[in-house]
């Protein structure tokens, strides 16, 4: 079909546009809100061909329906199912880009290297899939259609089928049941553990930055590992594991003991993600305000002895906040000068997210 060419051309333009305005979209908080399943909706209004035309808000128009003067008219409603018009109307397009595509664009734009997985080991996982049929099984798994077919076949083959009175009575040996087969699929083995400081000094803006940044990191890692595991830990003076939603929404207050998160993370890894089988990416975001030097020293020790030798990379992102001292970052820099496995990034504001992502993912580990 010739439309394929035009379609491809359009996609290229969309991608080109995406690239051009890329930074704008990264910092566009709404975008993740518009995420649906695997798609990210990106409005591309510039794809509209400009014409001399009236401003839509000035002109108004004629409508049909109930309502008194002053009642609002619902802008969403479009006329019913409708047949195709003779001429295509004008739309503002919301181009839907798949997450994979987006990650590719991200990779291209930031010149991110492909990630080299730690070893090529994959774990085979066995899943039971109910795709088979069996002549025995529990009644709850009886397959009505298949049973009926068998019975029908029997009727027809024995010549007892009467088209005028097509009654089929299945007997025991007609019955069919769903049965499972073992499906073996190689599973990739990467886990990202996000840790976030939710103490009183982390405001909404700081969390928004963490949210955006972890979204992009996730997109990139997902592109590189199929079936990526993600875990979320929040901490103030104590740490706990939460689901994604809570991770971004919780607002706690109180002191900060970073080591609490590191300890929990360590426990997670030890129990569920043996480091010789898994590619592990812990990321920690905080405003850099730790309770005591004592605790910082504990964190440094944990990093040195446990994390850094075992994980692919440990990311620490420090979000600038009015209240934080930012001391933790300096402590880390002093403790691990030039260590490639620890990536430290300072994120002053939303605009620096792109640079920070590059810091984190630019190493290809």
């Amino acid at each position, binding site marked *: *079909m*010739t*439309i394929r*060419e*035009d*379609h*491809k*051309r*359009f*996609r290229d*333009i969309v991608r080109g546009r995406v690239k051009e305005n890329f930074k704008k979209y990264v910092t566009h908080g709404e975008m993740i809100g518009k995420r649906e399943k695997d798609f990210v909706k990106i409005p591309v209004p510039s*794809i509209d*061909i*400009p*014409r*001399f*035309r*009236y*401003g*839509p*808000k*000035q*002109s*108004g*128009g*004629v*409508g*049909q*329906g*109930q*309502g*008194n*003067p*002053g*009642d*609002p*008219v*619902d*802008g969403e*409603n*479009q*006329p*019913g*199912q*409708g*047949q*195709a*018009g*003779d*001429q*295509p109307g004008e*739309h503002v*397009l919301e181009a*839907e880009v798949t997450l994979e595509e987006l990650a590719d664009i991200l990779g291209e734009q930031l010149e991110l290297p492909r990630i080299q997985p730690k070893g090529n080991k994959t774990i085979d996982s066995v899943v039971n899939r109910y795709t088979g049929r069996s002549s025995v099984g529990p009644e709850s798994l009886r397959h009505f259609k298949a049973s009926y077919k068998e019975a029908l076949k029997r009727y027809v083959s024995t010549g007892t089928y009467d088209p005028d009175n097509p009654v089929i009575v299945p007997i025991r040996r007609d019955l069919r049941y769903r049965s499972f087969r073992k499906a073996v699929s190689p599973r990739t083995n990467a886990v990202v553990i996000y840790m976030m400081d939710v103490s009183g000094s982390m405001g909404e803006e700081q969390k928004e930055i963490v949210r955006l940044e972890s979204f992009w990191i996730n997109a990139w890692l997902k592109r590189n590992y199929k079936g990526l595991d993600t875990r979320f830990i929040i901490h103030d003076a104590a740490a706990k594991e939460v689901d994604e939603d809570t991770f971004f929404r919780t607002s706690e207050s109180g002191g900060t003991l970073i080591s609490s998160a590191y300890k929990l993370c360590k426990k997670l890894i030890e129990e569920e993600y043996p480091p010789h089988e898994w590619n592990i990416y812990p990321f920690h975001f905080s405003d850099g305000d730790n309770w005591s030097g004592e605790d910082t020293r504990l964190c440094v020790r944990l990093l040195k002895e446990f994390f850094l030798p075992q994980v692919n990379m440990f990311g620490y992102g420090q979000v600038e906040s009015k209240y934080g001292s930012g001391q933790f970052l300096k402590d880390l820099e002093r403790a691990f000068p030039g260590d490639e496995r620890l990536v430290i990034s300072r994120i002053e504001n939303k605009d620096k997210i792109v640079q920070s992502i590059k810091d984190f993912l630019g190493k290809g580990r």
Partner: protein
Amino acid sequence: MANLTPELEKERVKIKKVAESVGLDFYETIFELITYEQMNQIAAYGGFPVRYPHWRFGMEYEQLSKSYEYGLSKIYELVINNDPCYAYLMEGNEFIDQKLVMAHVYGHCDFFKNNQWFSQTNRKMMDQMANHATRVRRYIDRYGVDVVEDFIDKCLSLENLIDRHSPYTRVKIPNLEKELELAEQGQEVLGPGRLKVHRDYMESFINPPGLVKEQEKRRKEEMAERQKLQNYPERPEKDVLHFLIHHAPLQPWQQDVLSMIREEAYYFAPQGMTKIMNEGWASYWHAKLMTEKIADDSEIVDFADRHSGTMAMSPTGFNPYKVGIELFRDIEQRWNKGQFGKEWEECESLADKKNWDRKTNQGREKIFEVRRNFNDVMFIDQFLTEDFCVANKMFVYKFNKRTGQFEVDTRDFPLIKKKFLFQLTNFGQPIISVVDANFNNRGELLLAHLFEGIEMQPDYMQATMKNLQALWGRPVNVATVLDGEPRIVHYDGHEFKSLAFDRSSESPPEGSDAQEN
């Protein structure tokens, strides 16, 4: 593409016969059964199987496919104005849908063939579109896809600047240039100062060569002089595309592309001018034929469901199907009962009006007459009545700046009608014409926007002006109204300037003083 299945073919023959029996008259109509992917492609191409390559069709395609895949919308029917007419049915639609579509399509085909506003359209447009595609592809091979596509983008931005009524005017405005051209070729039998000669040998006596030559020379000078003084173009030209094709510094291939786009715009124009009537007419007939002749008892509920779906009213815009069908029915009923003419207009008794029935029975005849002679503007102007507006719950809405939303403004009949007509005139687009192609005596282009109370959207205007400037080469100006002030917007290829413009003094400002502001 496949032909119809035997069952559908049987129905088609039947529906065609029924349609002809009620007086519909159409070109041969070829139905094709296609998949949804093909349907999306053809719909993206505006109904044609082949168009020139352009990303905008790909965009349409993507939107149509996406909304089909997500179950948001579905195309039932597509028909193109061509001889023979082509119509497409979608595979997998229900049988009742296919029947309904066929009945609907015959209504459209009748309209295409008989409505006078379609009389000037190219009935071999299918071939012509394919020719355009071939030519554009050839240019792409020669000049590169980016160059050609960029140019098409610019042309499309100006696509709506045509004079929709020009195909129907027979009188050609006398053209000085043409006269000069003819004179040069010696085709002009009688020039100025030349007398008619009946015998060849008298020629040199009656029209002495020296004198004739001198007179011709003088006249040429005069004409050149007049041309200099005269506005150029002589009178405002609404067909901006035509003007650009002939006067903008374009390469031959660019002229060709622009003229193709203009031709296609003119081809589609009548469909926009008769949207309400065309859909109303087709809906009127599909409803009549389905309920009276085609659908059987078991199908009638499904039919009613589909039919009411297409007739749904919307608060933010009128549904052309609904307004059209109701108006045709209203006309038929009024002319059946004799509810027209002086006596009816002057009758002031509500009771009399309600029971008015002169048994004139001219309804059917009248709607056929209307479908032949009217376009949407005339249709609404003539037949939209107060009773009709009330019965169909029509209102005017407008944007309320305070609340930030669209609100019902009024249900006052004269205002509804006024707004309605305004929306239909020139498709509700600003009316723009070339006023001066040598503005300020600097070869600048001046377009004038006929201001009717609504201002143009400034960002769109500027983007369009950029495209116009790229075609024209020299600076371009648009005389319009911005924020309540008459202004001339000037774009020289680098930046925009908004200059004061005194509208009361008909002609644009002289001299270049205003330019430097």
